[in-house]
């Protein structure tokens, strides 16, 4: 008998598989039973209606994709009226992703979205597309701490901070989020990227640059998940390039307590439940009965902090 359940800062999940924000919505309920997921994570919402970025919003590159959607949002009212009631029919915890242009606006939205039916709030302090000058809160420890403090005061719900790979200070940002009051870290968002059509010489995304996701991103997110798990005492949720049970196991060994699946669901809408099934089969095959046997079980010896928290390739 294998036990897939995990505990994310007091929130109990039946398994460690959940969608990444922006790659999941009510429509997926037309493909499989969403009750099979560890949690439901909504697309980031903002307080007000947002149109999003110009097209093309997506382009594929070898083995991965870039996107620049720009957080189109119907605003908080539509979300409260339609989205939350939809997910209420499921027992799986609902994690609402939010974003704000200023720390105060962010915190106000966080308070207003802390309603019955919401089990945790994922604060997208990392979206690379919309912050002014491409700067996100989670690029620096100081802005991370400042915004997390305000968010912490705004809600009693578990707060998950979604970090960005577009920083050179991963462990410092992780610690700042923890000190600011985060209950868990989601590691990480997409990495800022670019692609150009060589015939037209035009950028291949309408918004010039976008976020890289898919299998190419996995080693980067995995490294960050490892560093964040070492740097803090709060659960880490790995996110980046997960498309197989082996990817999940790799993240768990690195120190993550759960994972989010994103781009893989675009290629295979049933990817998440396939991964759950594969994970069970792998555990049976390898005589592993609980997630605790995997989480943080990396054989990395007694590495120095200098090596673990390295921010440049050797």
């Amino acid at each position, binding site marked *: 008998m294998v036990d897939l359940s995990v505990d994310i800062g007091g929130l109990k999940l039946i398994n460690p598989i959940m969608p990444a924000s922006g790659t999941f919505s009510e429509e997926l309920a037309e493909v499989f039973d969403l009750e099979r997921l560890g949690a439901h994570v909504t697309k980031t919402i903002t307080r007000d209606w947002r149109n999003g970025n110009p097209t*093309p919003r997506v382009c594929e590159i070898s083995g991965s994709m870039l996107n620049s959607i720009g957080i189109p949002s119907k605003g908080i009212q539509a979300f409260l009226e339609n989205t939350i009631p939809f997910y209420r029919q499921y027992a799986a915890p609902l994690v609402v992703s939010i974003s704000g242009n200023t720390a105060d606006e962010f915190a106000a939205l966080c308070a207003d979205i802390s309603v019955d039916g919401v089990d945790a709030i994922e604060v997208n302090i990392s979206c690379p597309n919309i912050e002014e000058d491409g700067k996100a809160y989670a690029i620096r420890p100081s802005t991370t701490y400042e915004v997390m403090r305000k968010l912490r005061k705004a809600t009693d719900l578990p707060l998950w901070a979604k970090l960005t790979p577009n920083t050179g200070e991963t462990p410092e940002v992780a610690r700042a989020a923890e000190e600011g009051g985060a209950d868990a870290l989601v590691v990480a968002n997409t990495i800022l990227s670019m692609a150009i059509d060589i015939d037209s010489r035009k950028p291949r995304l309408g918004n010039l640059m976008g976020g890289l996701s898919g299998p190419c991103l996995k080693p980067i997110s995995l490294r960050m998940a490892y560093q964040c798990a070492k740097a803090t005492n709060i659960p880490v949720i790995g996110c980046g390039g997960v498309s197989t049970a082996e990817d999940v196991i790799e993240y768990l060994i690195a120190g993550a307590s759960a994972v989010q699946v994103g781009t893989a669901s*675009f290629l*295979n*809408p049933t990817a998440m439940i396939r991964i759950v099934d594969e994970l069970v089969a792998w555990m049976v095959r390898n005589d592993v009965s609980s997630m605790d046997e995997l989480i943080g079980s990396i054989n990395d010896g007694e590495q120095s902090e200098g090596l673990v928290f390295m921010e440049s390739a050797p």
Partner: protein
Amino acid sequence: MTVFEQTDSFDRKSDYPISELDLLVKSNEPVNHEYRQLILAAPADLLDRCRAGQFFHLLCPQTADHRPFLRRPMSIYGFYPQSGELHFLFKVTGTGTRALATLQPGDRLSVAGPLGKPFEIEDSWQHLVLVARGVGLATLAPLALEAHRLDRKLTAICSARHRDYLLSIDYFKDLGADVIAITDAEGTSDVDHLERLLEDLVQQGKADVFYTCGSNRILTLLKKIGKRHSIPGQIALEQQMACGLGMCHCCVRPFEQNGQIVNLRVCREGPVFDLQAALAW
């Protein structure tokens, strides 16, 4: 009253209108030197859910030369529950379709669908007019089958560069449609000529609704004639997609709704839209 009903509510435990399946390739033959017809063996319960105008999201194979990453949306060319076949007609143009062209009988292809909002045929629409050009004829072909099934009159105006590229003409004829072929080579496909053809149909009372897809020129013309005579219309549109389900919001296009410009998802609110709401691009 519409003939096609979208599945808006369903039992979350057991009833899943969208499937992800590996289907067997029965054949994949060229129909001319640009287009191929792909025939997949499909279970009847999948085919029973298909409607004209809907599409599937195809996971094109990885080959030595072509490595498409995302799925490719492709409109249904034909669906036949009795023979268990799902047909696609595609033009070989890019990485995805080049990879698709390599599929051999016996290979498997992952499909996700059926997806999107289908064409509607209202009870009062007795004379249907379909106008399409090039590969757009593939999207409108199942509409001809549905019109035949519902015993509606259909006029199909088929446009192409050359007669050799007039796809599906025999298919439309076999279904009892009046086919009007217009080509660039014969100088019959220009907008003025098309407008005269359409006006003639309107005067004869043979145009209760217009269906089209793809072409900017045809869209602009049909909107004008539709407005002039208060004739409704529907258009199937394309856009680059990632998820195909409505999750990612990559495939939006602008539409005019109540005097405002709004972004709608081609995969979810479409791919079939109201003709007057569609904007030329």
